[in-house]
Each structure stands twice: as C-alpha cells, then as structure tokens.
C-alpha cells in the first residue's frame, strides 16, 4: 500500500537544468516545491575531483554518469515493420542520470537558434515553396517567436556565464563574432575561449574560401565569473575531460555551479534523490493531475500529491512519462492522429578526419568542451537551398574537445584495426589529425516517433520507451552536400588525407553521434499537432508543464541546451505572471 504524503504546491520530476531553475523560481515565489531525482545526489566537491574524475574507462567507456541500462533503457528499431530490441549499452546517445542531469556531463556548447527556426514551416514554404519538402517530412512552427524568447535567452546565458563574442548586437554586425547569428540584446557575459591550433588553421582556410569563422560560444569559463544568482565560477583549465565528465574546477556551467546551491538554501524546496517516478496521477476526469507516484531506493512506494506537476526529466523520459500516465493521445503514424511521440528527431552528425602530416603538431588534448572554431555559413537556412533539393544544414566545427588516449586514435582509411600496423598508425597520426565535427538539422518525418514498447519492461515493471527512427533522405542529401563543403576547407588547410564521410543511413545505435534527442512532446499553436501550448503547458492536463528538448518540433543544427534554457525561463515567467494568478489553460 503506497504511503500518501502531505500535499505540496509543486512537484518537479527530474532535477537537471530545467528542474532546478523552475524549482528555484517557484520556491522563491513562496511555493512549497519537492524535487524528485531518480539518480544520486552529487556535487562538484567531492564527486568530481581529480584524479578520480579523469577516469576514462569509468566515464567514457563504461558511461559512469549515464542512466543504468540494466534498470531502464529504450528499445530501438529503424522502421515500424521491424521488432524493436532494448539497448544493452549506451553508444549513439548518452542519457544522463543523477542530480544536475545532462547539465553535469555536457560539453558546454552554448548556441542560440536562428529567428527563422521558430517559424520554420512558414519560412521554408515562403522562401522555396512547398515543393522543396519531401512528402513524408513534417516540419512545423513553434507557436512562439525568437523575439519573445530573446530576453530569456539572455537571462540563461548570464546565468551560465556563456563565453563568446557577439556577431549581431541588436541588428548591428559586430566584428569578431558570428555575423550570421540571430540578433542579441547585449554582449556575452564573458570573452570567448582560447583558439586551438587546429582551429587557427581552419580559420585561415575558411577565410581564404570566403566563409565567416568565429569561436564557438562556450559555457566553460574564460575568467572568474559571478552570475546574477551570486554563484562564482572559475576559469576552465582546458583539461580535455569535459563531455561525459563532471568539472572539478567549478568552470563548466552546470546546475551544481550556477543554481543548485541557491535552490538548496531555500526552505521551500526539498530534494529527494533516488526517487523513481512511476506515473503522474490524474483525477477521475483525466484532465487534472493530483500528484505523482514514486518509489524510493528501498522499494517503498509513495504518493506525493501536488497542485502542479513539472515534467523536466530529459526529452525521452518526458515523453515516456506522458505515455505511462495517459496524458495526451499517443501518436499513430498509420493514421497520423494523436500527438504524444510525434516529431521525434535527432541530429545529423558527420565528421571529416583531416590528416595534416607529421610536421603539424596540434596538441589537441589541450581543449575545453567548447573551444572549437566554427563556420555558420551552412547552418539551417543560412544558404540558398532553392537549387539543392533539400532543406537544413550543419555548422562546421574544427577543434577538439579532447584527445583522450583511450578514445582518440585517428587512423587513415586502409589501416588495419588492430596489431602493430594499427599501433604504428596511431603513433604517427595522434598529434597531427584534426577532426571536423558537422552538427546538422534533423527534419521531423512521419515514420519517426516514440511510443511504449509492447514487450520490454523496466525494473519497476513499466513498459520501455520504443524509438522508431531512421535518417530522412532529405537529411542524408543535406549531410552529403555540407560534408563535401567541409572537406574542401580541410584540403585548403593543406591536409595530406581528407576523409569525406557524410552521414548515411540506416541510423545505428552502436556508435556515438549525439545526445540531442528532440521532439515527442512538441510545442505549438495547434493541439492536433502539438502536446504542449506555447507556454509548455499540456493541452490535455493544464496543471502539467513539460519543459525539455522534447518540445522542439524539429531539430536544429545547434546543440539544444541554451534554447532549452530560454524555454525554461519563458515557462517560469508564464507560471509566475500568469498561471499562479489564474490556474487553468493559458491558451
């Protein structure tokens, strides 16, 4: 018999960036907030301290910070005619777990999206006509504009202390920044990171070819910085252990370094770790949430009644929780009815290994998580697609996030995969190989979606989330085009060998690409094609708000975190200024 706990005002499912910021804002408004986190509690000190944190085997290979695959995973298939199988180890993407969520192990790549991305369908159809879209693509507008989000982008960037150089200040193009970025209302809080040698070589080649290189915006500090919450961060040491690791220096913006200590001091907030939420409970009408049920580490089940439920548990988990709780109608790709699970998208990554020759010493192990040099000329819709036959694009980044010895072994094509010749090749190329990283749009497609698996269940007896996904032909064509452009830059750098390797299908879960899983609970103006309204409020159960990359109707070229940050503050604002004054549907 579950134990029923005393009612609180708000329960937050998942305490990462979204959970901790929303909890902080609401607790500061005087509400009683409980944060339920399924993983362990953890803090910069002592949990992320060197040398133990620099354990590549534990964190990179054995995925020490990720969800426990023996208790909870997803099943996967490429196509709805196939039978999905559960993932037994994380490779393609890495869902984190534990206090701070993915905000602990991210690289700190801190991008805004473009203005036209929020009106993507309108924009694409206006610029190119409907014919450019393959019939099975399902792009749509966000129901919210960049202009509305800009103040919230700004607030999140100042919370994080993002390091960069503005390229477009209120419409005025600034030298040194990204001239193609969306207009921002003020300069970044901190200057950009130091450029790597490979990035400097890339910059020169890109300029020679007429592109617009700049240093990517980073949430790893370039100087001591105190954010508006009073949290002080230290400068990054370029140690090369960023993504998949916690930061020992208080240098990477994470919930632990920018907001959690403030939240934890507020007596209105209570954190409960190792609390696995089983479902959001609804009343008999099915239109009002009454709280959540969860199980603690001892296997005791509790019911936590609450007036407001915030679902902030990572894109894939958010969608699963909606499906497990019966909130919103599940999407059916055959009839294209229902919305929960619809418009699941990913990221179209490709790489260009660039072998520069033994007289070029890159020392790529000296790297921050976001210290690359980038061109934005081929991102999203920054170039004319009218004769190209596809939509979307990639940013092209050169620079390392690490050159860790267990993982980084660039060898040219034709090298044996083991043995003395392999070792010789690694020795020969380790310090002389730059890797271009192309991060590309992922276009929503009718057959790509999320639902509950009919067969496989988790350690609590609940159905796993099933992912059905393959790269749309549009995105494969896009990747081929932009990857060829990137290879031209690599050759301009004087590379001896350039491996032009665009992304091709089928999508496979066995090699790392990106953890930028998006969609499934998308934002929008039309309840027949979206799960939440423009304030991230469930259309069906108005006292449930869902905030995550699951809100994105399609995926951008860019890393999603800072746009999510803007949505978080936008939602916090709507909750405080609208919902709390008059609870009920905001649209």
């Amino acid at each position, binding site marked *: 018999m579950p134990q029923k706990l005393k009612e609180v005002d708000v329960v937050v499912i998942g305490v990462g960036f979204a959970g901790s910021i929303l909890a902080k804002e609401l607790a500061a408004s005087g509400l009683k907030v409980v944060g339920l986190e399924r993983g362990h509690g953890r*803090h*910069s*000190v*002592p949990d992320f*301290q*060197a*040398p*133990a944190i*620099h*354990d590549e*085997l534990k964190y990179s290979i054995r995925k020490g910070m990720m969800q426990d695959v023996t208790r909870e995973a997803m099943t996967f298939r490429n196509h709805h005619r196939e039978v999905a199988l559960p993932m037994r180890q994380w490779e393609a993407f890495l869902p984190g777990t534990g206090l701070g969520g993915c905000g602990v192990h991210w690289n700190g790549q801190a991008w805004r999206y473009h203005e036209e991305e929020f009106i993507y369908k309108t924009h694409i159809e206006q610029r190119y006509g409907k014919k450019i879209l393959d019939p099975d693509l399902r792009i749509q507008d966000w129901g919210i504009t960049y202009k509305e989000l800009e103040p919230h982008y700004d607030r999140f960037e100042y919370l994080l202390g993002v390091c960069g150089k503005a390229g477009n200040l209120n419409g005025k193009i600034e030298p040194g920044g990204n001239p193609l970025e969306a207009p921002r209302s003020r300069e970044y809080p901190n200057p950009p990171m130091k450029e790597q040698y490979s990035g400097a070589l890339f910059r020169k080649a890109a300029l020679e070819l007429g592109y617009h290189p700049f240093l990517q915006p980073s949430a790893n500090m370039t*100087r*001591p910085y105190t954010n508006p919450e009073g*949290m*002080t961060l*230290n*400068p990054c*040491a370029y140690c090369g252990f960023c993504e998949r690791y916690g930061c*020992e*220096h*208080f240098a990477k913006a994470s919930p632990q370094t920018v907001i959690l200590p403030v939240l934890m001091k507020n007596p209105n907030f209570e954190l409960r770790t190792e609390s696995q939420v089983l479902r959001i409970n609804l009343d008999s009408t099915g239109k009002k949430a009454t709280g959540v049920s969860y199980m603690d580490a001892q296997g005791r089940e509790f019911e936590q009644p609450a007036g407001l439920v915030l679902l902030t548990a990572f894109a894939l988990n958010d969608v699963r929780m909606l499906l497990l709780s019966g909130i919103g109608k599940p999407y059916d790709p055959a009839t294209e009815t229902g919305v929960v699970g619809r418009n699941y998208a990913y990221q179209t990554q490709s790489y260009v290994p660039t072998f520069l020759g*033994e*007289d070029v*010493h890159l*020392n790529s*192990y*000296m790297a921050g998580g976001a210290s690359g040099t980038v061109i934005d000329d081929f991102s999203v819709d920054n170039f004319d697609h009218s004769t190209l036959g596809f939509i979307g694009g990639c940013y092209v980044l050169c620079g390392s996030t690490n050159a860790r*010895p267990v993982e980084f072994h660039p060898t040219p094509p034709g090298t044996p995969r083991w043995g003395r010749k392999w070792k010789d090749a690694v020795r020969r190329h*380790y*310090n002389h190989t730059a890797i271009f990283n192309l991060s590309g749009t992922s276009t929503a497609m009718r057959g790509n979606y999320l639902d509950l698996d009919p067969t496989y269940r988790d350690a609590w007896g609940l159905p796993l989330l099933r992912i059905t996904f393959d790269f749309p032909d549009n995105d494969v064509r896009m990747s081929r085009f932009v990857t060829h452009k990137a290879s031209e830059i690599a050759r301009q750098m004087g590379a001896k060998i350039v491996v032009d390797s665009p992304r091709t299908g089928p999508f496979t879960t066995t090699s790392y690409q990106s953890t930028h899983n998006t969609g499934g609970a998308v934002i929008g103006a039309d309840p027949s094609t979206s799960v939440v309204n423009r304030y991230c409020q469930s259309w069906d159960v108005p006292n449930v708000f869902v905030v995550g990359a699951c809100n994105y109707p399609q995926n951008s070229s860019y890393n999603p975190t800072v746009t999510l940050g803007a949505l978080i503050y936008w939602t916090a604002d709507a909750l405080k200024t609208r919902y709390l004054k008059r609870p009920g549907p905001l649209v």
Partner: protein
Amino acid sequence: MTKTHSIVRTMFVLLVAGLIVASYLAAQTAIPNKTISNKATSNKSQIAVRIVAEGTTSGAVACARCHGFDGASDGSGAFPRLDGQSAQYLAGQLRHFASGIRQNALMQPIAKGLKDDEIDAVSQYYASRLAVPFPSGPVSEQIRDLGKQVAEVGDLSVRVQACESCHGPNGEGMPISGVPYLGGQYSHYIRVQIQMFRQGYRKSQQMLVPAHNLSEQDIVAVAAYFEQASRPTVK
C-alpha cells in the same frame, strides 16, 4: 587510501607520463635535422653553472646566493625550492618577473639581467637538480588532516576545488601544463604565495577564486600538508 583509489592514481600518473612522452617525441620530430652537439649542450650547462655561481655582468645576482647550488634555498620559506621544478614553469616565472606580470622587487632586476637563452639554461639547471631540503617543522595531526582534505577533496562550502586537481596527486605538479609542484615545497613559501594571489601581486585567473575563498586556517593547513607530501623526483 583504498585500493581502487590507488589504481586510479596509478593510471593517472601513467596518463600524464604518456602525455609527457608523446610531447617529448613530438618535440623531437619538431626539429628535423637539427642536431645538438655535445659541445653545445655542455656549453649550455656551463653557462648555467656560471650564472648560478657568479651571476651575469648585466645585473643578475648569482642564483645560488638564495637558492643554493642544488635549489634547496635556505629553508626560511622566503625562497622556494627550485630543484626538480619543471623548466617550463621556472622559465615562465622568470619571464613574468622580468616583465612585471609577477611583481617581486628582488627577482625583477635579476630576471631582467638574464638573456632569453640564459633564462632557459638556469631553468633547465634547477629542473634537473635533486636537493636535500631543509627539514620541516612539526605539524599537528589535526592541521595535516585538514590540509589533506582541502588538497585532495576541496571544500564545497567555499566552492574551492581540490588543489590536486591541477597540482597533481601529492602535489607533484603537472609539467606539461606548466603547473608547479607543491609537494615538498616549503610551507611558509606556499602561504606567502597564496596571499600574493589573494592580494593581486601574483596574477593567475586559475588561482584567484581559490586564494580568495580559502580561510586562513585552510591556507596554513594545505601549506603544511604539501610540505610533508611526497617529494617530486628528478624530471
């Protein structure tokens, strides 16, 4: 120390060693066809010995006057141990003294009196010494434990990371990233330097927040802990 902890440490040391070897090999291939004759090498070390013993005619006082021939200095804590310190770090600091980035009335004229190759020569000289330092004073168990805690774990309440995150296990230093060793350094010297960071006489973005946030007691404790920590060996 637990067994896993020591394994992690061993791996870490091996990793750092691997990077040093890699950069050494890189440095070798970086200078193709340039052979350094034994004569040149011995000339260089002779230059260093002469500067250490006699100083230069352009104003550098003999290094040995304060730092000794073996780099053990005088044990007062006013002067650091230099033996086995990375040459890259020593040369960097000499250049900072000369330019005034690191403010020190005693060292500035000395550093200014050294030519660029002389800076490299004396730095390499002290980097390759192994001294017998002056013995450290007694430290209470309580202070040493506090120092060990701050050095190895850090202090969340003041948002200070473990010193060893940069200065390496036992404060052995990280020569490849130009981070000095603290293990075996005189505690008085460490304390003075933390105060110098705190008051802005030494400029380091990395040290700014830790130097500000550590309490006086923490500073005394980490300094005492590091003086007693295991010594670096000759690099």
